[in-house]
């Protein structure tokens, strides 16, 4: 091998081995840019429990604020932010809810209150047949300047009637070893 070939050979070997190396690692431990690409590989149930925001108008019309409401354009990053706030308890949820309410005020004039909700839904029922699962309000906050209207919005139980056949909540998946959780990989 001539001398001017050594650098290309070394670079080629290092980059190839690095890119292929995740195949020998635990597929749960994702990283960047050396990934195990587990995004669509997880075993999935179609029933899921997660936190999200729901906005309501004074008349009770429901609206799901976009990911920008929690400070990101990426839906899966928004999910993580909501999840982390949910883990942080009522103070963290309240802070995020208030931040989102301030942003929502810019996009929808009719929304007067934002609620931090945890819900369990079955994907096919929800998407194909329009059947919602069970939901629980965790925190609510008024859109700034609409406090009076927000106070008139009835409690969750009156706003959202319980489903005829409740969906059984799914326990969160056990975290695999390492820093990543299945949530990280399921996202992309």
């Amino acid at each position, binding site marked *: 091998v001539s001398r001017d*070939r050594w*650098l*290309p050979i070394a*670079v*080629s070997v290092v980059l*190839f081995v690095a*890119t*292929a190396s*995740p*195949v020998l690692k635990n*597929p749960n431990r994702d*990283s*960047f*840019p*050396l*990934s*195990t*690409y*587990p*995004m*669509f*590989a*997880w*075993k*999935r*149930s*179609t029933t*899921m429990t*997660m936190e*999200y*925001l729901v906005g309501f108008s004074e008349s009770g019309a429901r*609206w*799901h*604020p*976009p*990911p920008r409401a929690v*400070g*990101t*354009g*990426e*839906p*899966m*990053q928004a*999910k*993580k*932010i*909501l999840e*982390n706030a949910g883990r942080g308890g009522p103070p*963290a949820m309240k802070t*995020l809810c208030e931040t989102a309410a301030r942003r929502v005020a810019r996009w929808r004039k009719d929304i007067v209150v934002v609620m931090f909700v945890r819900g369990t839904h079955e*994907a*096919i029922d*929800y*998407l*194909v047949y329009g059947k919602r699962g069970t939901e629980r309000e965790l925190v609510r906050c008024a859109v700034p300047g609409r406090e009076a209207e927000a106070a008139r919005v009835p409690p969750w139980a009156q706003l959202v009637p319980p489903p005829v056949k409740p969906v059984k909540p799914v326990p969160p998946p056990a975290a695999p070893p390492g820093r*990543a959780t299945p949530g*990280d*990989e*399921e996202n*992309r």
Partner: protein
Amino acid sequence: VSGKKQERAAAATKKKAKRDLSPGGLARRFGGWWFAAVPAQRVAGVRILVGLFAVWYLWGRYLSFLYLNRLPVSNWRPIGAVSLVVDQPLDPLVWQAIVIATIVAAIAFTLGILYRVTGPVFALLLLFTTTYRNSWSMVFHTENLLVMHTAALALAPAADVWSVDRWWRARRGAPMPEPDGKYAWAVRLAAVLTATTYVIAGLAKLRLTGFDWLDGHQLRNQIGFDNLRKALLGDKVAGLAVPLLEHPALFIALSLLTVAVEIGAPIALLGGRIAALWAVTAWGFHVGVIMLMGIVFPYPLYGIAYAPLFAVERPMGWIGRQVGRLVARVRKRPT
């Protein structure tokens, strides 16, 4: 007569080398392919495509990159190279300076300005910037190949033509470079990295879910699950998801095709029509992902991931000539 004899002898040696399956013989054949003489325009063409994509990608996401530092710190989880360098979020001004520096380096990389310096600098900055972005709770999988391809090109002579460096050398009378093996390896490496990432993605499915992944249920569940999350998060549900979720049988074919494209990616390295067929199928797979999950993988979708599989210098050279003619015509036009 002696010429014919020599030709026959050369053909026999070539045939023998093809039959030689010993490790040494295989290594020689592989080395012959890895360093086969190709025009300098090939690696330069791939550099320009990767660079243009990087500039567009970074510029288009400039604000969203900056907004990262406004996210609650509880979302900060450094990974990869970033975890080796910083243990807390960067000062917003420092982060902004790094993002701007990455964009400037991307432009220099694309134009081939002082490439020996700007190539490696851009590769490092891009690695840091994208890893920092992925350190905010969410590992994206849309930038991996871009980072790896940039790394492969950074140390190659990818700016010997079609670059500012070349323009500068030509002014000083340097001749055009001849086809050489030194222009092949980075393109081959980029092609191998593309194939490798698909294989790893395919293997991950079989490692995590086993052959159950092939029966269609898992794919249908994935699509339902992903779209439900989007609906709850106020994002758009993918256009084809709802109509197709009602037909579970369709997902058997889609699952088999997905794994076949991923595990079968190395066949693209054979080049020619096989590479084209694979690239079109893989591209179709990404279009399917958009229609069923609304997830965009721009790097393969714009074809950049597959560019190293082809002689990109031909269409790019043709475009360059047309642009040159157009410019000449405009200049000649009497005022």
